[in-house]
């Protein structure tokens, strides 16, 4: 393929990233800040893709630039997007500035000691990592090294990461969800100004109806083909979630909730983690260590390496399920302010 990177382009991107960060934090309109932050994330994607980290870039594009921006916007939809100008507090800001600068100088003092950028013999690149590159085919028959490390060598991290998404989902649910019956007495109802509803427009509805199947098809491809190309459970799950979020935005939440009730959504979120943990537990019952998919070769087709490959696919599906439904549930909670009726 191509050789990397044209350094001028990289340097330009890096400077742009810093600029975007500053702009995102200094803009007074919060909606604008969210958009600029999305652009910042896309810049970051380019930089990472330029350094060969395609899976990370893919995830950041889907998660950091896509879904995060949607989350911030649905929060702002229910609240206010403008910041009041406030004076004072300058001394405090300066003090923090000094502290942060000291921290920065302290970090910079370590730079000469770090291995140079791109050195293939640096400890990080020479100690553990080569094992993965040279053994992934023999061990798990997965040419995408990232997938095999993600779901097999360091599969425990990924189980926990899925758990983190699961926790975030049920945490947001517990924080925001309110009963409609209690609404009148308990929480002051926020008086929302009449807002623009994109679902009013026929063009938007038809266009998203046309795009959603393609998105889902692509997402399934990303999950299933994660062994051979960038992607996997996370990215695919996020895209699947995004396709339904698109439906929720272009029609309305009720349209989505008619197909996926609250109960179904929240139970599916848990089921993905359960699938992952159960696959690991099955390995223990077959006589191996936890998450040692090789032990599954008596129930999955193929020898140990193929059993690993299939085990990876199983857990990726678990990850995909949890991530997809978490993203939808988080969006619904944020957008409808926990009322599950209307919203962005």
């Amino acid at each position, binding site marked *: 393929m191509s050789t990397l990177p044209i350094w001028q382009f990289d340097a330009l991107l890096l400077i742009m990233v810093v600029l975007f960060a500053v702009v995102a934090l200094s803009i007074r309109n919060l909606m604008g800040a969210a958009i600029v932050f999305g652009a910042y994330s896309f810049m970051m994607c380019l930089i990472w893709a330029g350094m060969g980290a395609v899976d990370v870039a893919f995830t950041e594009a889907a998660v950091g630039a896509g879904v995060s921006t949607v989350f911030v916007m649905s929060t702002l939809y229910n609240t206010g997007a403008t910041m009041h100008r406030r004076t004072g507090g300058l001394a405090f800001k300066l003090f923090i500035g000094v502290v942060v600068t000291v921290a920065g100088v*302290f*970090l910079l*003092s*370590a730079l*000469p*000691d*770090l*291995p140079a950028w791109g050195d293939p013999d*640096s*400890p*990080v*690149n*020479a*100690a*553990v*990592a*080569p*094992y*993965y590159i040279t053994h992934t085919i023999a061990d798990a028959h997965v040419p995408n090294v990232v997938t095999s490390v993600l779901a*097999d*060598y*360091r*599969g*425990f*991290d990924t189980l*926990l*990461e899925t*758990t*983190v998404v*699961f*926790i*975030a989902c*049920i*945490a947001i*649910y*517990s*924080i925001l969800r309110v*009963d409609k019956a*209690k609404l009148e007495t308990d929480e002051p109802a926020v008086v929302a100004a009449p807002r623009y509803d994109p679902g009013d427009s026929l063009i938007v509805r038809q266009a998203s109806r046309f795009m959603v199947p393609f998105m889902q098809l692509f997402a399934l491809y990303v999950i299933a083909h994660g062994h051979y190309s960038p992607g996997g459970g996370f990215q695919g799950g996020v895209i699947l979630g995004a396709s339904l979020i698109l439906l929720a935005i272009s029609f309305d939440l009720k349209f989505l909730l008619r197909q996926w009730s609250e*109960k179904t959504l*929240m*139970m599916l*979120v*848990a*089921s993905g*983690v*359960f699938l992952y*943990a159960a696959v690991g*537990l099955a390995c*223990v019952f077959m006589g*191996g*260590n*936890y*998450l*040692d*998919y*090789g032990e599954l070769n008596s129930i999955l087709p193929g020898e140990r390496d193929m059993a690993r490959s299939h085990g990876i696919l199983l857990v990726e599906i678990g990850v995909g399920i949890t991530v997809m439904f978490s993203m939808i549930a988080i969006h619904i909670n944020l957008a409808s302010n926990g009322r599950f009726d209307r919203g962005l």
Partner: protein
Amino acid sequence: MTEQLPIVIILGPLLGAVLAAFTAWFRPKLSHPLVVVGLGISFAAALKLVFIVADSGAQKYWLGGWGTKQGHGVVGIQITVDHLNTLLLAAVSGIALLTAQYTKRLVDAELAGRQRYFYALFSLLVTGLLGITITGDIFNLYVFMEIAALSSYALIAYGRGRAYMASFNYLIMGTMGACLYLLGVGFVFAKAGTLNIDDVSAIIPELGQSQALFVGFVLILLGAWAKMAFFPFHGWLPNAYAYAPTASTALLAPLATKVSVYAMLRIMVTVYSIDYIIHSPATQSLVLYLSSLAIVAASFFSLTQTNLKKLAAYFVLSEIGYMVGGAWLANKPGLTGAMVHVVADAAMTSALFMAIGCIVYRLGQAQLDDLKGVFFKMPVTMAAFVVTMAALIGVPPTCGFFSKWYLIQGAAQAGVWHFVAALLLSSLVKAIILFRIIEIGYNRVPHPAIEGNPAIPRNEAPLSMLIPTVAMALGLIALGLGTSTLVNTIISKALPAALTP
């Protein structure tokens, strides 16, 4: 089957939580027993491992069977149960089990109608804390840290009202801590090339003087300090613990900060060797001053509080100072004291917050002025409370005395007299507060035993709460009596060999 025990410790609460999240939708009553069963399995495994470790040394477990490969070190994730963490594992899972039993009534009363995911989050928090304790991989530790942190934000936010802002502040500080930790891990990783704690600790001495390693060390410590609310980062803790529902605080206060202290100990003792601290005396004395300051400031603030929960939160802060200071004395009694105190303080804080929870359950609030006559209303609870306070002060047969004794011994040996003074001052302040509470609770009302005074009806907390509270208080004394056995069989083996005796 015993070789699978380390992973069982994590899987018990994890699967319990996931199943509880399922049953919350069709059999809500099942959630609590499921979580209790999960924690019970975890506690049994942890207890069994204490004996195994005492007999045959550290137990290592490789996830996915990915152990050491020739020339590469450990390629997978390792979890380790050794002399340093086995006691804490048993303490965390045991306290969590007792607390889960204890909080049932509190949750039904405080969070009626909203408790759908409470026990799932409760169990996930325990998963995270156990994971931080058991893991043998510095990146895996970060993930567990976030699991514990995210579930605790939600548990605090259950308190509503001001709890949301308290939880948000905790989120910002907690994430800052986690990010600093992760950045520190990056620096260590850049120099060592591996994430496995055993491998890193073997590589670090070979690298010699290295600024990147030092920066990594400082960043990791700052991260751990933000998580444990050590002195300059303590702002979030009192509000978070005071406004959280009592049921959440009963779990968070004893365990969350202690486990972060353990993480710091693990980094100091195992990842970087203790020589690293001995060879940087400037940092060492700075941290010792900070810990003394933390103890004194927290003690001072606890004197000014009128709310029992906030007061207890400031106790937690001052105890953090004990442990950080003890660890940074970097001599044998100091480190022993810190290690004992992590376990002892978890038990003491747990008993303290359980007693406070009983009081809140009956009185509805925890203002000091409302405690009038509480000794007559709830004699058993208050007996447990007094025992706990005695332990916190450091009265001999309780565990608080022994750990404090080690700490003072260590400080004296290192010649750090300001730390000794801070320790004694903090004990004094706690004694003052105890007597103040006794004064309010006992003397402010006319004594009912005297003829003619109105009788005060007994109104004890329900047995499901009272039994764990009393058990915990008795446990403090038992732990105190068993301290020397624990130190000789387990903790002394966790100390680095290079230490001066």
